[in-house]
């Protein structure tokens, strides 16, 4: 049941426990208990909303930063990754295969803010060899959702 709950919440974290109970044909109390357990185990890590800030009229600058680092004896990439992901400006940080090592997602209010963060905070981190900053110009699709396209039900009434 936990796996089904996770799959449902991953798609729509606003589903109520009652809805989930109805969908899985189980008791609502059991759903509440399971969700609490998943939260306590650190498997359900948080609930966030997907927002088209641009549409709201607020600019948010997102940059994907390719970071090359030199791994450390005994720690590999973990230590340097930790130094980077602790910054609140860093929204995501992943170790990658390929031509660079860490892929870091940074958000800020302006391009300058993001650029300065990279120049002053990220690049000087010990063992960081180089950075390449790629700014997002337009988001088309995020978390499986098409942005900028408001769904309107255009189905006409037909006799069926």
């Amino acid at each position, binding site marked *: 049941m936990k796996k089904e709950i996770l799959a*449902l919440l991953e798609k*729509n974290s606003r*589903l109520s426990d009652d*809805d989930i109970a*109805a*969908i*899985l*044909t189980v008791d609502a109390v059991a759903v509440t208990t399971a969700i609490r357990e998943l939260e306590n185990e650190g498997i359900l890590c948080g609930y966030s909303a997907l927002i088209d800030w641009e549409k709201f009229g607020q600019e948010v600058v997102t940059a994907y930063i390719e970071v090359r680092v030199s791994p450390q004896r005994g720690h590999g990439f973990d230590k340097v990754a930790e130094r980077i992901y602790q910054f609140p400006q860093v929204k995501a940080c992943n170790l990658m295969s390929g031509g660079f090592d860490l892929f870091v997602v940074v958000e800020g209010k302006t391009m300058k803010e993001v650029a300065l963060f990279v120049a002053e905070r990220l690049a000087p981190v010990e063992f960081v060899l180089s950075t390449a900053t790629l700014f997002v110009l337009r988001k088309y699709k995020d978390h499986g959702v098409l942005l900028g396209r408001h769904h309107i*039900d255009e*189905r006409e*009434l*037909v*006799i*069926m």
Partner: protein
Amino acid sequence: MILKNMIRKNVSEAPPSGIRKYFDLINEMKDAISLGIGEPDFETPWSIREEGIYSLEKGKTFYSSNAGFLELRNEIHRYMRERFSLTYNPVSEIIVTVGGSEAIDIALRMLVGPGDDVLLPEPSFVAYKGCARFTGANVVPIPLKAENRFRLQPEELLAAITPNTKVLIISYPSNPTGATMEWDDYAKLVKVLKDRDIVVISDEIYAELLYEGKHVSIAQFPEMRDKTIVVNGFSKTFAMTGWRIGFACAHPDFMEQMKKIHQFAIMCSPTMAQFAAIEALRNGLPEMERMVSEYDQRRKVMVEGFRSAGLDCFEPVGAFYVFPDIRSTGLSSDEFCERLLVDEKVLMIPGTAFGDCGEGFVRATYATSLDSIREAISRIKRFVDSVVSEGDALQESAR
């Protein structure tokens, strides 16, 4: 001068749909929630749409053979065999039609006319009755019962058969009830049908929208295979309603004749849709399964919602309809739907739209978003509560 008297009576006297007035009402409303539309709310999966677009880009804008591209019929052959264990020769036993609706129409036109009886278990999709009447045939409704989970019973079938009976139309999973039939249910019908000259038109358009068990077709019974015309299509399975594409499978003797009507009336199905349909059958099944699992989630929320609103609700395991029993409110189906729409701006379709025996029931579709379903359910709850307390007050004052 309009020569109204020239119009044939079996056309002019066919009643217009009783649902029309609701459509007029809802069109003037804001914030109305429609649980009335009988089509998927999903867009056609992208890879399928893309194949249609690509066919236009390549300039593939010509007729196909009357029966449809052989490539598509080959895919239909494979699909029917793999999904439903039904084997039809792609050359002589399959034709591609303009939606399942055309298949039903041409099958009826081939088989019946004035003096013939068409048996129609009701409540049912509205087009069967209309198409049968236009041929001049006589429609004999067989009222299905909620206590039998709207499954056709052998004794009901037997009682309706006369020497004039030529066709039985069956459609499971059912619009509007969401009912299904299992192997044992069909086996009993087969006993009644196997030695009689009755052709079965089995509309299996909702075959893939099944949430429990495995779809059974009456054509899977060897003794029925050549007496059955199986109708299916892409509209419901792959959310392709506007493409207008379906197909029929039957013995070559039937197919040859249906093909004649089809070729003179229609020529061939839209080719853009045919190219898209090939992609649907080749690669569309995972997307179809994703849609089915979403329907299933909404189905459960909706059934649970109706029950918690105090409406008795038989568990539908197919199609995307719920058919709750509203008799406890003391209202007729029509009153219920009209008042619900006016008071709470929720559209459901009265059961009577699908046959007289639909009285006491209403049809709601869960081919709409979960949010709409939840909001609709809370409005329906409020409505049912107010109707019930109104009824209690009336009883009180009568005492």
